[in-house]
């Protein structure tokens, strides 16, 4: 099902049609989950945010402009929910603790599958080590294929800032990747 076909179901779901809700969830949950999981690492937090994202979808659907791609709107919601989550003070305390844990254990993995892929794919672990501001640009650029202009609009930052974060992220990745022995061309 493409996104255009999804819209009537979304509307029905927001009006309380539960079978429409199921359909929308089936069509979107992997995308939502994966996007959140790239931005936040704790399993519990990911689930909290995914849940909040869906609440936001129902509540804000009336603000969606049908002339624009649905996924763009959806990813915008995800990014905002993740940022909200980061802003909340009590969570920041937990984050602080987690960061301390992470420096001890190197990394906390969401999935065993990731851990497995980790040993094979060094680059993903480098992406995960980027700061959030840089990482979100990388995810939106290379996972969702958005242009830097679209990314800037979604993150509500100037295009110049998006470009510089993108540049900085690639620079970091190249630097670390060459240190771990990867064979990436340094442009």
């Amino acid at each position, binding site marked *: 099902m493409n996104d255009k076909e999804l819209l009537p179901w979304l509307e029905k*779901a927001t009006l*309380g049609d*539960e079978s429409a*809700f*199921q359909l929308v*969830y089936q069509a979107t*949950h*992997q995308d*939502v*989950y*994966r996007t959140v*999981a*790239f931005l936040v690492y704790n399993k519990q937090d990911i*689930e909290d945010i*995914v*849940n909040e994202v*869906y*609440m936001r979808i*129902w*509540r804000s659907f009336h603000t969606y402009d049908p002339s624009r791609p649905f996924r763009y709107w959806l990813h915008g919601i995800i990014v905002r929910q993740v940022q909200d989550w980061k802003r909340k003070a009590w969570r920041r305390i937990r984050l602080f603790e987690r960061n301390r844990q992470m420096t001890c254990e190197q990394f906390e993995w*969401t*999935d065993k*599958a*990731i851990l*497995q*892929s980790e040993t094979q*794919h060094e*680059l*993903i672990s480098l*992406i995960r080590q980027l700061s959030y501001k840089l990482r979100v640009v*990388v*995810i939106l650029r*290379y*996972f969702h*294929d958005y242009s830097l202009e679209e990314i800037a609009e979604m993150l509500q930052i100037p295009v110049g800032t998006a470009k510089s974060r993108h540049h900085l992220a*690639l620079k970091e*990745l*190249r630097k670390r*990747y060459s240190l771990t022995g990867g064979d*990436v*061309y340094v*442009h």
Partner: protein
Amino acid sequence: MSIDKELREELRQAADALHCPPGLYGRVRHSYQHYVNEKRGRSPMKKRILAGIAAAAILIPSAAFAASYLADDIFGSSATIEQHGGTQEDYQVIEEGLQKAKSKLTEDEFKTYMELSKQLVQLKLKITDENGVRHEEKLTEEEQQQLEQLASRLAPYFEKINGTSNP
């Protein structure tokens, strides 16, 4: 391979390895149902409370009506008596008298008593101005006769109501 291409490939593979836990569906669905309830106005609990309040709002005045003033049957409302120099307290006194009558008289007697009182009061209201002063001259001869008649017809009832000695 350029880093762009490699990043895409890498993220795609990592995403494929990430699976949304099936348990999350139940949670999102629960929140969704909560949203639907909220959208429909209120949660079931709130609904019940509101229904209770609404029922109380309807029942209380009707209960009050059931125990409404007997005096209202005669005067319409306490406003009538106030327009003729009476007060709320006077109204209460009349009400007490009527309640007493109701308890002392049989149902049929009370009915007649109320009817006669009503006529009497109508006439009396006619001759009483807004300061409570009587002007008997306002009545026609016919009406004056009527008034006397009513008074005499009511007399035995008054005796029965007030005469505690001969029940």
